[in-house]
Every structure is written in C-alpha cells, then in structure tokens.
C-alpha cells in the first residue's frame, strides 16, 4: 500500500483535505426519509452518500429459514453502479456479501431478537456515492433506520475507522488515504457499553499503534453517536409536529 512519492500529511501535520489527525469528515444524518420503509435514514459522511431502509419485524420468507425462537437480522449492503469512479457491475460481489454478513451480525447484537420468533428484520443499505469508509457509514445509518422503525433495541451502534498513513495514526481515512495508507481499522461499537461489535483490520500495525488507532476510533464513535441522536430527536419532533397537525384537523 505504501507509495513513497505520495505525501498524505503535510509538514504542519495537516492532511490533504485540511483535517487534523483526529478529525472526522463532516457527517449529516436525516431519519425517516422514505415512505414505504418502516424506518429509514440518509447519511452523508464526507463524499459518502448512504441510504438505509428497515422493514420488519415481519414474517420471514422463505419459511424454512425461519428461526422458531428469534428474529433473523438480514442486512444487505449494496453499491449503486454509479457510486464509484469505475462503474460497478450491478448485483452482489464477494465484498458486499462479506460486508452484509458482518453488518447483520453486528446489528443482531443490539436488537431484542427473542421478542420476534419466526420473523425477519431486514436492513437494506444502498451506497449511492462511495469515498472510503462506506461500511462504517452503512452501519451508522442502519442503526438510525432501525431506531426510526421502532425496532426494540438495547442500544445504538456507532461506527468509524481509524488507521495509519505516512506512519502516523489518523482518524477516518479518506479515499486517497485509504488507497495509499498503511493500515485501516473499521470499528463498530455499542456506544454506551463501549463493546466492540464490528472490527476488521488490514495493513500493518504494531501493538502500540493498534492501541492508538482504537482510542481514536472509539472516541469518534461516541462523537457520531451524538449525531445519530440528534437525527432521531429531529425526526421525533417532526413526527410530533405532524401528530399535532392531525389533532388540529380533528378539532375543527
């Protein structure tokens, strides 16, 4: 991954896109953006644009895949053909199959699956524009969509990556940094408990570097959690407004 000619961090310690080592790209989240889905969220994270929709709990099809004692969580991560510089062929590839699997597992941890035997909770994430860090963006958006759908959950999951570029530990690698950096560690965290529900790593890190990476990523997850909460609060107040409107109408 190392390319000697490319400098990702300036002498002033500032990254190519102007960020400091521990700075996130701008993140905005909007909950409840789709009408048909039971819950949804739209998230922009730097140049990443991600839409998440939740259906369920609903009767699982096909029946033979039902679990008689709990709900099955099925996440589907999908990239739009136009979401990357070189057009992607539509349909699942090995990368998206893997990400769908680890997202499903991560989300299952926080959902009260025992309450919904024989059901499925389906989470669909569409990556409309991709620019490094889409699995963290997807998992973060999916958590908000699940909450928007009113799925009983023990907590939220927030997700962010940290890694190493030019020998330095930095938070939330951008596209160039991901391509030419030395290590990337996507983390998914159950925010209140600090427990790890998604963790991958590739590249090259000493144990000390790993510790620094995790510190950065875990702090960032807490920061992202606040953005998730704000999105839900805003959605909740909007819903209430809508509710009041209806009451007004009824009073007339």
């Amino acid at each position, binding site marked *: 991954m190392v390319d000697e000619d490319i400098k990702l961090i300036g002498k002033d310690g500032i990254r190519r896109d102007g960020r400091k080592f521990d700075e996130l790209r701008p993140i905005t989240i909007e909950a409840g953006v789709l009408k048909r889905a039971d819950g949804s969220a739209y998230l922009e994270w730097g140049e990443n644009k991600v*839409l998440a929709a939740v*259906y369920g709990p609903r009767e699982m099809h096909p029946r033979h895949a039902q679990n008689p004692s709990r709900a099955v969580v099925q996440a589907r991560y999908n990239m739009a053909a136009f979401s990357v510089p070189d057009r992607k062929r539509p349909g699942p590839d090995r990368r998206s199959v893997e990400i769908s699997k680890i997202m499903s597992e991560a989300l299952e941890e926080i959902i009260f699956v025992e309450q919904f035997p024989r059901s499925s909770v389906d989470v669909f994430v569409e990556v*409309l524009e991709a620019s490094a860090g889409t699995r963290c963006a997807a998992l973060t958006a999916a958590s908000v969509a699940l909450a928007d759908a009113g799925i009983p959950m023990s907590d939220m999951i927030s997700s962010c990556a940290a890694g190493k570029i030019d020998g330095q530990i930095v938070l939330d690698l951008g596209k160039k940094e991901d391509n030419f950096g030395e290590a990337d560690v996507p983390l998914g965290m159950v925010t209140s408990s600090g427990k790890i529900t998604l963790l991958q790593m590739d590249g090259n890190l000493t144990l000390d570097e790993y510790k620094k990476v995790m510190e950065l990523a875990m702090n960032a997850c807490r920061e992202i959690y606040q953005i998730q909460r704000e999105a839900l609060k805003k959605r909740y107040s909007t819903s209430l407004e809508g509710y009041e409107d209806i009451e007004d109408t009824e009073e007339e």
Partner: protein
Amino acid sequence: MKELISRITKDYLFRLIKEGKRLDGRDLLEHRKLDINTGWIGTAEGSARVHLGDTDVIVGVKMSIGEPFPDTPDKGVMITSAELIPMASPKYEAGPPREDATELARVVDRGIREGHVIDTTKLCVTKGEKVWLVFLDMHILDFDGNLFDACGIAAMAALMNSEVPAETFDLGDNYKLPIGHVVIPTTFYKIKDQIMLDARLEEEMIADARLTVGTNEKGELVSMQKGLSGVFEYEDTISCIEKSREIGDKIRALLKDKV
C-alpha cells in the same frame, strides 16, 4: 399483485374513479408533484433524483471507452439497467419480479434510443475501434407507482446533466453530453373504462391496462408501450398521445429550468 390490496380499498377506489375522483384529490389527468434534483452524485458523469409524489428514483450515468457495435462503427453505445431494490417496497421482500425490472429498463431505453436523445454520432473516438459507452443505471428507492414516468424523466434529466469525462481518458477537455432531443414519457392507466394519468401504487394495483407514450419537443411520437392484460380502444390511444404532448411540454420546460 391485485391480490395484495384489500377488497374494501379496491371497492372504494372503484367508486371514486367512477365519479372521476382520486384518492389524493387529483384530477384524472393530473400529474403528482414532480421534484427533480440533478448533479447529486459526484462519482457519476451525470445524475438525477426524481420524486413523483412519493415515488423516489435516482438515475446515474457513467461513461467509459469501449468498442462500437459492428453495424454502427461510428456511434456511441448506451447500456441501460434498472434495479428494483428491495428497499423500495415491502413487496420486493423475496426479490422484485425480474420481468418488471426488465420491461422498465427496456421501455426507458427505447424512449431514449429511438428518440435520439443522445447524439451518439458525437461519441465516436476512433471509428470501428473506440467509442464512448454510456451506462444508465436506475435505482428505485421508494415505490409508489408509475416507475415508467419517474425513471424516464430522471434518465432524461441525468443525461442532460452529464459531462463526457474526456480528461480521465486523456482525450482532451470534458464536454457536455450531446443531447439530440428531449423525450418525456407519460403513462396512462385504464381502470373500469376511465383513463387516468400517473397512478399511485394502489391505483396501479387495480389498473386493467397501462399505456406509456413518449414524445419529443416537436410533439412527435417516439415510443409507446402498452402493458397489463386489459385493452385500449384505438380512440383512447389518440387522446393519450395528445395529452402526452401537452404534459411533455410542461415537463420539458421544468427540466430546462432545473438542469
């Protein structure tokens, strides 16, 4: 699909329609609110998101260099595909019906291709060897009926918004994708002998027949597709074409503003 709607809703809809009324208070030949946003996706050569009421679609255009077809060695090539992703509807749970997506993609494709929307003669790099490939990908995000119009309009808008990425391929400066004609599709639904425009999902589910009419800025007819098992009278098709030209002009004006 007709079975997925309750008998009561069905009867209510039939009653309304007989009186020339609709669920959302629209007139039979009135479109829903149309929102067009272009240039949304940075990784695409062009893109458009279209809301037609609660129907929400996004179309992205990608371009690259490839080989022309042997019988049109000096023309660019367009490849269209539609994904009815399960996000868009609870009915797509077990995967959306493949033939619906295929028909949708092909009808949008024909409108653009046969309407000469893209001036493909300006997309030749080396005759017989290298031409521009234009990939048009449609994603349905929220499905409340009438995908034909939503996708057709979004495709038109995305193409008008597109830039040929010549620089990426060391072929000089980028330039606007050459547009020959502006084609707008309009879809009519026949329910109990009434003809209505732009059906919502519940209306689409009880429709007997469907007719999509595409016209260009000269008022010429460039594409038609009849669907569903019901029938149209010949006279119906004439009035649909006339109405389509009228609506097409309005949407073309709106597009001019937006793109």
